[in-house]
């Protein structure tokens, strides 16, 4: 069967060698990523739930509170990690499901493209909200609306 390839058979000695000698599939990397991000998402998610639902009085949430909160660098960094890991982990999980269960190549490709597009848009919005959103301008606009 594969007698031709037998000749060059050599065992990889290090992780780097193993990666280089294995086929170019990225699935190994994704498999590792899913395990690490899955573990990280447990504390991230529960800390997020705690911070937003338990550590504060829900009746006090208003625009000023959200602005003040999202301007703290710590909150921004924390939420960025949450966004990144939740999006990549979730999207990759959906990709697994699509590849497992959608057998027609055309439909499969289309579904994956829709998934990546929607996920990309959500991700960009998330990053913009966290890092590039001008709360002062938005606040002024809201106040201007209210005073009319």
């Amino acid at each position, binding site marked *: *069967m*594969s007698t031709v*390839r*037998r000749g060059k*058979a*050599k*065992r*990889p*000695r*290090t*992780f780097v*060698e*193993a990666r280089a*000698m*294995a*086929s170019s*599939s990225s*699935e*190994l990397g*994704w*498999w*590792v990523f899913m395990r690490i991000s899955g573990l990280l998402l447990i504390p991230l998610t529960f800390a997020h739930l705690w911070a937003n639902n338990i550590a504060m009085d829900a009746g006090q949430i208003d625009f000023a509170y959200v602005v003040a909160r999202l301007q703290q660098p710590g909150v921004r960094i924390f939420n960025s990690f949450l966004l990144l890991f939740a999006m990549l982990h979730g999207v990759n999980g959906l990709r*697994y499901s699509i*590849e*497992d*269960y959608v*057998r027609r190549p055309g439909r499969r490709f289309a579904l994956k493209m829709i998934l990546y597009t929607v996920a990309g848009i959500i991700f960009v919005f998330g990053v913009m909200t966290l890092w590039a959103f001008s709360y002062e301008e938005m606040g002024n606009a809201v106040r201007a609306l209210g005073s009319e």
Partner: protein
Amino acid sequence: MQITVKIKRFDPEADTRPRWVEYQLDVDPTERVLDVINHIKWELDGSLAFRRSCAHGICGSDAMLINGVNRLACKVLVQDLGNRITVEPIRGLEVKKDLIVDMEPFFDSYRAVLPYFINDEPPPPTERLQSPEERAVFDETTKCILCAACTTSCPVFWTNGSYVGPASIVNAHRFIFDSRDRGTLERLEVLNQSNGLWRCRTAYNCTEACPRDIPVTQAIEEVRRAMLFRG
């Protein structure tokens, strides 16, 4: 003991789709499902087609979906199933007739992982020695009888027949973890594809289905780690 056996039958020359046929018969509670099916074939309906050979859980011929679970018909007693028994062919492989499926795709995947000893080093003057500890590492996966109960219980395999399947990974594991073998890289290369090792979703159906009690999912996980850390 009066029992009703419902068998999913398919005759490629007469049927366009499988049909259920019920048989009533009187059996001893300590008889096996294989005995029951033999009764049916020998005494009630000679046209029933199924595979069996050794009838002692070693040859792996008579894997069937019995009361919704993949098992060997020769290892299940009637008394453990009750008086209603349903028997279907194993899933995910094309049904040729009644309980006989086309095993060729299954064996193709098996052959793909090079399930034989590979070592191009010059043979030592005596044996290639192996310690009991080195042998124990792959002990479980030597037990596979290629009955296909695991692969055909895998939900990923049902929808994606090109998935290499748990049985092939188990048999790759048997050689990958053999200290005397040198073909690890070739096997990992075969398995490191999206339709190889990475298609497993750890549903554990294979582990539950295995009539030899091989911890199949654990073996798959060990091969994945070998892929990651093998130095």
